[in-house]
Structure formats: C-alpha cells, structure tokens
C-alpha cells in the first residue's frame, strides 16, 4: 500500500511505525517479541531520534543491540545480540514486567473489544478450536503488567474489532492499538478513537469496526517527518516493515 500525500510517498507501514516510535519516551524500558518487525523498527527509529536512552529489550537478550543487518524471517535472532553491552534474556524481561518495571511492551492479538478485552488465543471453542492460532506469546502476562502495552495489528476489520471477544486471553494496561486505519487509545475502561491516519478516514474506521467508534474529537495521525522517513529507510533498506501487508 503506497499513498502519495503532497510530494511524498507513504506506506501505511511507515505511518504505523512512526506512530509507534513516537509512543516511546526517552529512558523507557521497551520490549518486543517474535513476529514483530514493525515494533523492532519502531524501537530502532525512536532510539535514533527522540529516545536515544530508551532501553531496547528483546527475546535473544541483547540490551540495546546495534544490529548490522536485519533478517526478513525473524525478530528474535542473534542480530539482536550484536554489540549489546549486557545480556537480559526473555525470562528476565518477563520478570522485569512482573515487578512493574517494564515501561512499554509491543504486543499483538487477534480480537479486541470495546472494553479492552484481548483475545490472543483462539477463534471458536478453546478445546475444539475452529482456527488454532499461534498463541498469545507474552500477551497474557505482559498486557496486565507492562506500564503501557502498545498493540499493533495489521488487519483492521470487523473480525478483529468485535463487540465481544470469543475468549479473554487478558486485559490490562493497553495504551494504544495501532492499526492500518487509525489508533485507538484505552481510557476509563473503553477503547476510544485517538487519531485517524491521513490515508484513511472516519467512515472507513467505522465500517471496519464492530463496536461503536467513540472519540472526543477527530484528530489525524501526524505523517512521518522527512527525518523519520530517512532514518526508517536507512534502518530498513529492504522494506521488511511491509511484510505483514
């Protein structure tokens, strides 16, 4: 998906990743897991720009790695060990979150409802699943314990944003849900529309969401800046950020 706005070409993945990067504050402890190229790039982008002292945690356990080349097939490989100063592997990242000291966890899920329930487990009956999903990985324990869980999901449709999830894997400290159409925020027990991507519009969000789309005001997600795009393209020259699309 390539969108031309003004003189610049934007992929939706660019917009999503820049939005995710901006949610990372300087000095925060930030984690992502497997199958997470977009968060991986968001963390690297944030560290290259406004959050150089964000602490980058990951599954292999390299703290603040400086990977020479990313791999298309993984966000949990030895690249995330390169030039790390210290080792802090997955089990310890979980512990850190359990004791309330993980600031940001990037997670996904398959269904979300208006009240912030997350289904990362199963469609249909748990014991006789219609569709066996990969499993929620860390979601069930990180969404309640990370100070801010940032969810990203590359599908925004009525099967994803539902009235009521099939299964409550977890609920908790959702900060934002970033989709190809918009960003939801979680406030006072419900999901609110935070910003709409300039590549979408309110009607499209409504048409693709089962629950009533509530908002305080209509705001648009800021477009990636020139600087953001330049750095993002340098970090991800092979456009791995787009593999989920």
């Amino acid at each position, binding site marked *: 998906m390539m969108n031309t706005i003004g003189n610049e070409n934007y992929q939706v993945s660019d917009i999503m990743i820049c939005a995710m990067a901006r949610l990372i504050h300087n000095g925060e402890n930030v984690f992502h897991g497997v*199958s997470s190229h977009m968060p991986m790039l968001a963390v690297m982008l944030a560290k290259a720009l406004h959050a150089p002292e964000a602490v980058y945690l990951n599954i292999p356990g390299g703290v603040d790695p400086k990977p020479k080349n990313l791999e298309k*097939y993984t966000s949990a490989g030895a690249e995330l060990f390169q030039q790390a100063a210290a080792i802090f592997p997955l089990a310890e990242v979980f512990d850190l979150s359990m004791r309330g000291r993980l600031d940001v966890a990037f997670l996904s899920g398959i269904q979300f409802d208006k009240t912030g329930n997350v289904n990362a487990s199963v469609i249909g009956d748990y014991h006789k699943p219609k569709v066996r999903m990969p499993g*929620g990985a860390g979601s069930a*324990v990180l969404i309640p314990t990370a100070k801010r869980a940032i969810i990203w999901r590359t599908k925004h449709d009525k099967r994803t944003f539902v009235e009521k999830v099939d299964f409550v894997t977890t609920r908790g400290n959702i900060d934002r849900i970033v989709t190809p159409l918009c960003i939801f925020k979680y406030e006072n027990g419900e999901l609110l529309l935070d910003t709409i991507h300039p590549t979408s519009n309110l009607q499209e969000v409504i048409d693709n969401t089962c629950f009533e789309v509530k908002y305080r005001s209509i705001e648009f997600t800021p477009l990636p800046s020139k600087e953001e795009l330049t750095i993002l393209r340098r970090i991800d020259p092979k456009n791995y950020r787009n593999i989920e699309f």
Partner: protein
Amino acid sequence: MNKLMSLTQAVEIIQDNDTVGIGGNVLHRAPMGLVREIARQGKKGLHIVKTAGAMDVDLLCLAECVSSVDAGFISYETEYSLAGHYRKAVQNGVVKGNEHACYTVISALRAASAGIPFMPVKGLQISDLIEVNDYFTRIQDPFSGEPVTVVKAIVPDVVILHVQEADKRGNAKILGPIYDDVLLSRAAKKVIISAETIVPDSKFEFSQDKADIPHFLVNAVVHLPKGAAPCSCPSKYSIDRGKLDTFKALKSKEELLDYLDNFNTADYRRY
C-alpha cells in the same frame, strides 16, 4: 564419563509418551537433527514443551509423534507464516494445544528446576486461560490474603538441545542467545545434546568462558554439525530457505519421511 554416541543411540533414550522439552526459539538453534531422528524412530504420544516453537514442533506433528504441546507460541515468524501441520493436528483433535503465555512455560520449568509443584505467576490475572486449563489455578497468598494465579510445574523427562560446543562428557557452551536452554537443562530429568563441534575436555577448564550446561546434567552427546539446519545456528549458519520451503509444502507423513532421507548423510555421518 564419555557420553558421545550416535544420533540413533541418543534418541533411543526418549520413550513413547515422554514429556520432551525442546531448546532454541522459533527458527533459531532448534535441535533439528534430534527432532528428525525422533520422527524417524516413530516415537509416539510425546508431550512437547517449548516457549516458542516453529519447524521443530510442526515437523513432529506431521510425523504423528505428538500428543500435546505446551507452548506460548507455535508458528514461524511473519515471513514464513503459520505452522500448518501443528495447526491441522490441533484442529483435528489429534494434538492437544495447551496454551501458555511464554512466561508460564518458563515459570513451570522454574518450578521443576526448584523441585516445587507450582509457581505463582504475577501477570496472569484476568484470563479465561485460567478457567479452561487444569494447569492454572488461583490460590490465596497466605501472607496478604490476596489471590494469586499459579502454574503447575512441568518436568520434562528429556530435553533436547543443540549447541555450538560440547565436550565428550557433556559440558556444553551456547554461543549467542541462550533462550531457555539453560533453564530446560535444569528442569529435565535427562538431557540430550547435539553439538556443532566436540571440543577437548580441557577447553572450558582453561577458558574464562565456562560451559553453560555442566556435564553431570547431560546423558548423551551427539557430534552433529549442521544439527540445527535448516534452522539457524548463531555464529555458524543462517536458515536454509530451500529446505524450509520444501518442508512447508509437504502434505503427508509419507512425504515427510522422504524429505527426512535428504538429511540422512548429514545426520548419520560418523566423526
């Protein structure tokens, strides 16, 4: 004690219906040579344990070796998409998919490692997972009276790991990410190691860089270069895309057995 043995002998340690922990993470340092041999020997009813598995679990499901899988995540990562054989086996009711958060697998293994029957888990608070699974339950913290979720210990009968370096006694060193391999080696009753290189016994003794897994936890050592292929082995090789693609296209157990033959030369070479 010299624990070097052939791949065949090592895998014979595994019994039908054993609980088997698998080292590595997704496509990284999975002990694929050992996994292939499990498939060739036609083990049955295995209870697989892994935080995040991919081709290893997928292959064992296609080979009909598996009875249940306790894991937080069973899938290839984005590019290679879902673990189709595993998925099918679960959906057909052949394999029981016991969903964990990756951390509850870690907690269950930590409990095993400490010889305790369960482990409290802070993060599992509001979740249908607690109700639908008999390995989670809520108890009361005896000190505060507050509820706390606990996970039942998982004690692997055997753990299979692939490492870069081991000596013939079983001291083993992992280069790069360790994932949950060290924990698995502590939780298990028996440990089988395959290694890219067999180093002299003196190597770890005279190095600052000691073995991560001490010999007395290890029951078998197999010299198996390329033992993680077609998965990656940090500092040695990346994934083998051709062999991965071929595997993903397999449709039946019979096709799998043919596919496994391609690895016979590598898996059974004697050093």
